């Protein structure tokens, strides 16, 4: 597996939508523990709207990411509008000229998403946010590319790294966002954004892996 046709990437987007829908209640619960409980609801509303808008249309992977990011940014708001809005639109921009999304392209897309995020938030690894998932995931893809791994193997690496990253937030004390006021009381539970980011990246990876002939 060298890559997949950008133009044929719609099933990946649909897999991402379904994963968020399936986890709406779970994300709400995670956010409820130390946040305000709306993370599942907001993500579900945005992703579901996106799923409906592309339902009867052909969209490429990067077109879809751009639309999703723009929708979150312009219509959903919250913290997720700017955050995932930036991540997805910047990923899309980095990949939009590629007909084939290879491992290298995907790695550069994730790097661009994280870069964009760094422009708008001060959170870095260790601050108990979605950065703790996104950063190691990006690194895993980049590392796999250096090592010349197949896209499929790289995606497995990414999922594993994202999982470790997500789980690492459990022992952290939140420094940004709603939970940051809790200090020590924020320890012991996952971060909501790190959790949704893991769900999205996993669905994306599995969506790519499921593409016929990819």
């Amino acid at each position, binding site marked *: 597996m060298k890559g997949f046709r950008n133009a044929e990437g719609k099933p990946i987007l649909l897999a991402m939508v379904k994963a968020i829908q399936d986890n709406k*209640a779970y994300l*709400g*619960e995670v*956010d*409820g*523990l*130390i*946040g*305000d*409980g*709306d993370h*599942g*609801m*907001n993500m*579900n*509303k945005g992703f579901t709207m996106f799923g409906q808008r592309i339902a009867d249309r052909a969209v490429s992977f990067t077109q879809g990411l751009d639309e999703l990011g723009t929708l979150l*940014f*312009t*219509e*959903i*708001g*919250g*913290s*997720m*509008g*700017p*955050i995932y809005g930036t991540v997805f639109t910047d990923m899309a921009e980095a990949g939009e000229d590629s007909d084939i999304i290879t491992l290298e392209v995907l790695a550069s897309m994730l790097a661009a998403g994280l870069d964009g995020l760094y422009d*708008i*938030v001060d959170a870095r690894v260790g601050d108990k946010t979605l950065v703790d998932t996104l950063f190691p995931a990006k690194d895993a893809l980049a590392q796999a590319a250096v090592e010349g791994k197949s896209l499929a193997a790289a995606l497995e690496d990414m999922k594993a790294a994202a999982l470790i990253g997500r789980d690492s937030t459990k022992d952290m004390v939140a420094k*940004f*966002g*709603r*939970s*940051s*006021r*809790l200090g020590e*009381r924020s320890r012991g539970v996952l971060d909501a954004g790190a959790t949704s980011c893991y769900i999205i990246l996993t669905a994306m990876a599995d969506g790519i892996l499921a593409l016929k002939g990819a």
Partner: protein
Amino acid sequence: MQRILNHPDQVVDEMLKGFVKTHSDIVATTDNPRVIKGANLPADQVGIVTGGGSGHKPAFVGYVGENLCDAVAVGEIFSSPTAVAFLDAFRAADRGKGVACLYGNYSGDNMNVKMAVKMAKKEGIQVKTVVANDDVPSAPKDQLNKRRGVAGEVLMWKVGGAKAATGASLDEVIAAAQKAIDNTRSVGIGLTPCTLPAVGHPNFSIEEGTMEVGIGHHGEPGIEVCPLETAAQMAQRMVDVVVPDLPFASGDEVVVLLSGLGATPVMELYVLYDEVDRLLTEKGIGIHRSYVGDYFTSLEMMGATLTVMKLDSELKELVDMPCYSMGLKQK
């Protein structure tokens, strides 16, 4: 969930439709369905904008009105409005003298406002901001910039809106609103949780017989869970958090705002206020004016927030100015 809803995802849009129909003497729609503006914005004034998540009635949209806010960006329940909504609110409020965006310190709002301010600048709309951070329990005093904005925002809007009505410049309005919030401290006590319509069950719990001191406006955990107390004890606890933090001292004149969190009977707020009034008076703090009622709520939570603002002669004059909105009417 015993609530009055159609589809939970539509509740904000439907609420706005009902709100605009009811208050057409005070507010008007804009091209952006999530932006509400004042029905009659006086020419030649600095525009006052705020915005935030829904579920806090009368906040935020209930404070659009005469000598208060000129336009408001409306978010989903407990969720920041989009940057585009903030931008559209700036556009609606700007009358050539610039816009003061007076909002609360939440990371979603911070990000969306920041982006909207950038976009507005490109259009030639000058926007300056004041970020309310009156909630004492949300961070220690050496991290003021981490504190949440809670019911003190109402007093910030009151002061900012009144200052704009005097014909002041943007910098003067910003300075007054900043002074207002800098002199304001709040604390909340939560007695029952709340349920987001789209979630359908409470996302946190407060054990019967206990109370959550320092709870946030979205049910964010507070600093301490302790056994449920009498009104007198709650008042003491709230005063003990708020007074030493500024600090408020004997001889100070203050405004007190005691807001219910939604489901607490207003009768009980007056019982609590009577105790707060007594405690402050005992400390030699003079109460110039008080507001008691549901001014900034959290859906159907039970509990209350105490907000105290220290006055100087400018703030006093601005607080006393008449105003007319759904949430606050004063002559």
